[in-house]
């Protein structure tokens, strides 16, 4: 599951809670998802109360499974519905996956955390940081052309966010994990947007 790979491989001990077992957790889920589908009140499990703290950052194995409305991120990424045995999970490639991987708060937050990490661990030069981010996601360094693409994208994002500080602040506030206040908002936002690109590369999603 791509969600797990993101948390586990990219961020290691950062956000992901590494312990085994425990009760189900309730990661981010769009509001009102149960409305119009689940019978209101009276029955247990009719309300989705989002977890706090570590509960937001566990492997999806621990995500609460509601059969009437499974978690949409798992659903859209081909999680079997658990009604019949599945020998091999189908793999699909859909626009809804694109929307989820680009816009779902859990992935936007993951992008910000990746950005913070490469900005603290990746040295001073943008190239070194981009190389680290790319390597963390794919397991190898970018070639010259790939680095050029990323450098170019970073420049554009930085220019855009420097003109829109409020927008930058809104982006880096996505997710419950606090953002690193020592990094200027426009810079962190630009790096978050670039990390968002890296985490959406085909190579990251399917070959990681």
């Amino acid at each position, binding site marked *: 599951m791509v969600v797990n790979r993101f948390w586990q491989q990219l961020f290691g001990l950062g956000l992901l809670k590494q312990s085994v077992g425990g009760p189900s957790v309730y990661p981010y889920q*769009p*509001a*009102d*998802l149960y409305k*119009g*589908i*689940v*019978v*209101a009140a009276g029955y247990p499990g009719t309300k989705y109360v989002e977890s706090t703290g570590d509960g937001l950052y566990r492997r999806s194995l621990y995500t609460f499974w509601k*059969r*009437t*409305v*499974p978690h*949409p991120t798992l*659903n*859209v990424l*081909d999680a079997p*519905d658990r*009604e019949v045995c599945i*020998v091999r999970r*189908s793999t*699909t*490639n*859909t*626009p*809804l996956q*694109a*929307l*989820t991987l*680009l*816009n*779902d*708060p859990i992935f*936007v937050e993951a992008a910000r955390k990746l950005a913070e990490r490469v900005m603290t661990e990746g040295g001073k030069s943008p190239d070194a940081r981009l190389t680290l981010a790319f390597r963390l996601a794919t397991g190898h360094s970018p*070639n010259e052309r*790939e680095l050029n*693409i*990323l450098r170019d*994208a970073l420049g554009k*994002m930085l220019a*855009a*966010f420097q003109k*829109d500080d*409020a*927008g930058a*602040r809104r*982006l*880096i*506030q*996505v997710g419950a994990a606090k953002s690193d206040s020592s990094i200027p908002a426009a810079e962190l*936002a630009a790096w978050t*947007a*670039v990390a*968002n*690109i890296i985490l*959406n*590369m*085909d*190579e990251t999603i*399917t070959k990681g």
Partner: protein
Amino acid sequence: MECCNFSRVTSRRDLLARAGYGLGAAALHALLGGAKAHAEPTDARVTFPNFTPKAKRVIFLFQAGGPSHLDLLDYKPQMKDRFNQDIPASVFGTQRITGMVAQQDRFPVVPTMWGFRQYGESGQWLSELLPHTGRAADEICVLRGMYTEAINHDPAITFIQTGSQLPGRPSMGSWIDYGLGSENENLPAFVVLNSLPSNGQPDQGLLSRLWGAGFLPGRYQGVQFRGGGDPVLHLSNPPGITREMRRSQLDALGALNRELHDRAGDPEIETRIAQYEMAFRMQTSVPELANTSQEPDHIYELYGDDARKPGTFAANCLLARRLAERGVRFIQLYHRGWDHHGGLTDKLPVLARDTDRASAGLIVDLKQRGLLDDTLVIWGGEFGRTPYAQGAVKPDSYGRDHHGRVFSLWMAGGGVKRGYSHGQSDDYGFNVAEGGVHIHDLQATVLHLLGIDHTKLTYLFQGRQFRLVVGVLYSFKYATYSHLPKLKWPYARGSEDELEANNDVAAAGSSDDAGRSTEFPRCRLRTVC
């Protein structure tokens, strides 16, 4: 990389898979790759439609909970004089009753408290609760001999949606998307819209697996459009990311993915690039679709005032028309709250009001746009309701239990006969008298109208070919013989010998009334395949 240049053309897996169909087919597949790439039947030798379709798309106005056929669509004047009499044993037969009435010591007839009248030139008999549907009476075809095998909601809804009472099969919309693909590059081919009854009593939950893809690839699952917030989940960019910025992000992402594609040659990478671009287009096409503010007043007039309130059945009907206009293949609405065990007499008018005007308005609207000819509209639930009362019985206050042995629904457009009715129930609206239509017949009919041979739309899963319509011969047979007073039901089937005999009859037959071949494998009844 130089050692394996062939992989730039097609992946090893693809090559092996397609080798069986010959390289010509592989080349053809590549040539047709564009708009049709969405549809990819397991067996590349079968293409859909199999014959000229009458309908290009379906709007299924599903009424969850089991609307009472006796109070809406099936006029039974014979019941008037039989108020509070017991249903004769000869009629009751082997009725399987639900736990909810199992404790009742008698099953008294309760006729409808509403009047019925004839509408339109066709003289279609409909309840006074459906005056607007009455205005469209000459467009609809009422099926009064529908029957199902299930007696409770979940198995019955699962049955009508997936062809099996057991969960795990793909929804009808998924099958059709899988077979026919999309006609609009900017919207999903299978869209789902839910609404709650205006009395706030939905009775049961729905399950998102009802529009799930089952064992088909996940791309075929229905996409739920929502009344509030993002119409599609995660449609909006994260806060702070503008559309221009997203464009630059996707340009960079596309360039990186193409870089990988040049290196690795996996065709799935091209698909991914295309899907990200479709996601980008959906960010404008979906809000444009969902924004009905430009619709003129006379259109709202057709659907009723509710159509101005997002999330209502009427608003969803209007959206359904807009989806149909844009070529969406299967549009599935669910309106809940039809499960009237008690207080039917109070609740039914509310539900009828919720749906009557908008359903009829949809037909009129589709027709004036020339869309009704190739759009199949279906209105109905998973089963009907009992002619006997559940609980206390008074002429103007009663409830009815679930009833699957006969019920009614209507269809319109898409090659269906106009101002027509098919099938009849008996004097009590209890059993099929003639023209029985099993759920599988309905599904086979829908596929037929779309130009699909229901036996050819299959998917290989767990080592065998699955299909939507499971035992259609079985139902044809019962449909054919359903004028017999006693229907044979799977659960009242008796001995294995009888089952064998039935199978032999089935296997021996060469064609049914409609001239369709009935030579099916004998395993049909036991290994639902």
